[in-house]
């Protein structure tokens, strides 16, 4: 068990990366700016000659740029491996998929675990607090760098869906289609509350060292694991947990009358917590959850969500999952009502499943059919009947 943390360095992560903003700082919503800043990303497929077949794929809170190939940290398959590839919903024979690590992350893009070039020490809590808008602004700079004026689509689940919405709102002329999946136009009070539990767990761990654990040669393993355990429950559903574990006992036939992991569900959660700690930075968890908490598209538009999309040319496909209680269908419906009020072109599908919020990462044929159908229809409007 590695109890120390090395600063994150884009060069060693094993994906494409670029350092931007040397002469042109990245302005942040907090009023601060970053110069320079790093964006690490992965691409799949090829950019066509017209440079108009790019799909920006935005990852969720604990995701990363390795969407369709094994993570160099865990060796596990990419988080959307089954959806990306030749002939798959995000067809790499047709589309150029770009998946950047978010600003504030810990897989090569600038974040608290990166070394501050000015001080030569890890940023830790001196890294500026970032927002979903800042993440998107950094991604827009990446597209400038790649020479892509307009995305065919921006697609993302959960926090990735927030970015898909922010993109459509901030850069409507640069997005042809937006697909927010299992997302919302604002983070709810309940979701902020869960995030706060996670953050408090991290900060209560003495090994967090006021955020300076990298310099102290420690790692807040217990705090981050508890944060993950609490969050992981919110990604599932009561039905899914019951189906998977019920009240089954873990490698034993009776209670131990102690506080060991008697139940399979406890053992499972403990495993989720401890394996997460090996691949994720605790401070990055603080920063990214904060960015999600601050997300409220309506607030930036006088409290009227429809104004965030006034006269939008973007085609939307909103997808929710029936058993998702973290980003429930009601939030998607609220978004759809606002899009209707803005006379936007919108499709909205609730996928029937008992797998909870995490369904967007799982094999859900109805969801995949919806995604394919929408992209197909959008491609027809973008390029006519022929292929791109």
């Amino acid at each position: 068990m590695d109890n120390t943390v090395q600063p994150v360095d884009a060069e060693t992560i094993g994906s494409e990366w670029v350092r931007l903003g040397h002469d042109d700082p990245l302005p942040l919503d907090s009023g601060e700016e970053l110069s320079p800043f790093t964006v690490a990303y992965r691409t799949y497929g090829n950019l066509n000659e017209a440079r108009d077949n790019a799909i920006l794929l935005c990852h969720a809170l604990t995701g990363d740029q390795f969407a369709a190939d094994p993570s160099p940290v865990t060796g596990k398959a990419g988080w959307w491996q089954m959806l990306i590839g030749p002939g798959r919903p995000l067809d790499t024979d047709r589309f150029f998929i770009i998946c950047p690590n978010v600003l504030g992350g810990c897989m090569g893009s600038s974040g608290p675990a990166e070394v501050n070039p000015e001080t030569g020490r890890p940023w830790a809590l001196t890294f500026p607090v970032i927002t979903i808008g800042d993440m998107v602004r950094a991604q827009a700079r990446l597209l400038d760098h790649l020479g892509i004026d307009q995305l065919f689509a921006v697609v993302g689940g959960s926090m990735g869906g927030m970015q898909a919405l922010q993109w459509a709102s901030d850069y409507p002329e640069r997005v042809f289609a937006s697909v927010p999946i299992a997302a919302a136009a604002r983070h709810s009070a309940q979701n902020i509350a869960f995030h706060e539990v996670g953050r408090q767990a991290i900060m209560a761990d003495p090994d967090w060292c006021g955020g300076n654990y990298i310099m102290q040669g420690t790692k807040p393993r217990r705090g981050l694991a508890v944060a993950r355990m609490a969050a992981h429950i919110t990604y599932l559903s009561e039905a899914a947990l019951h189906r998977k574990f019920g009240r089954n006992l873990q490698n034993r036939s009776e209670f131990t009358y102690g506080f060991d992991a008697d139940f399979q569900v406890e053992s499972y959660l403990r495993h989720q917590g401890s394996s997460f700690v090996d691949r994720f930075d605790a401070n990055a968890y603080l920063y990214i959850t904060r960015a999600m908490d601050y997300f409220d598209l309506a607030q930036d538009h006088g409290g009227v969500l429809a104004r965030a999309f006034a006269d939008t040319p973007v085609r939307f496909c909103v997808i929710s999952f029936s058993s998702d209680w973290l980003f429930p269908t009601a939030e998607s419906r609220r978004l759809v009502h606002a899009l209707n009020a803005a006379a936007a072109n919108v499709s909205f599908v609730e996928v029937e499943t008992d797998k909870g919020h995490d369904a967007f990462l799982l094999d859900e044929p109805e969801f995949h059919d919806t995604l394919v159908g929408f992209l197909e229809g959008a491609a027809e409007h973008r390029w006519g009947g022929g292929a791109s």
Partner: protein
Amino acid sequence: MTPQAPFLDDGVMRYDLRLTADMVTPGSRVLDVGCGDGDLLAYLQREKGVDGRGIELSMAGVRTCVSNGLSVIQGDADTDLKDYPTGAFDYAILSQTLPATHHPREVLQQLLRIGRWAVVSIPNFGHWKVRLSLALQGEMPVNEFLTDAWWETANIHYCTLRDFHHLCDLLDIRVEQGLVLNSRGRALRVPPRGSLANLMGQQAIFLLRRS
């Protein structure tokens, strides 16, 4: 909502849907309320080049539509029309769905607020077969057109063609065009407002406009 009218042979669009489509100007903006599996929307998009959107109550219908590349949302005619801006569409279409709504009057008003025109088709409960069923057997009609028994039909607000015209008068809605169809789905050559239409028409399609 399940459309009440039967489908024709495989792949052939229901005749009433084709007549509905005929009332729509090519290239216009269309909202199909209760669009089912999207047959009419797809046809309008393909044959008439309209910019089409749909609302459908059943999720299965919505998924079919979106999987086929149509812009359709899951929603309810009774509650979700109010979100759309006034005059957002040239045509708001409601096929065979009006009797299934909780508030037909409000729905009709919303259609004509959202669309410059509304195309509304309704089953006629004044049809002679319905009258006979009630008069001779004393039973609610079940026939080749009204296929569901009273306890399973989606229709909760029954009206005759005459009733419908009364409502249009009440709401200052002008009927610009009316097609009355017989039991074979063919247009009858009768005045759409007359007693004969109300007796012989199994369904009717109206092009409506605010007066």
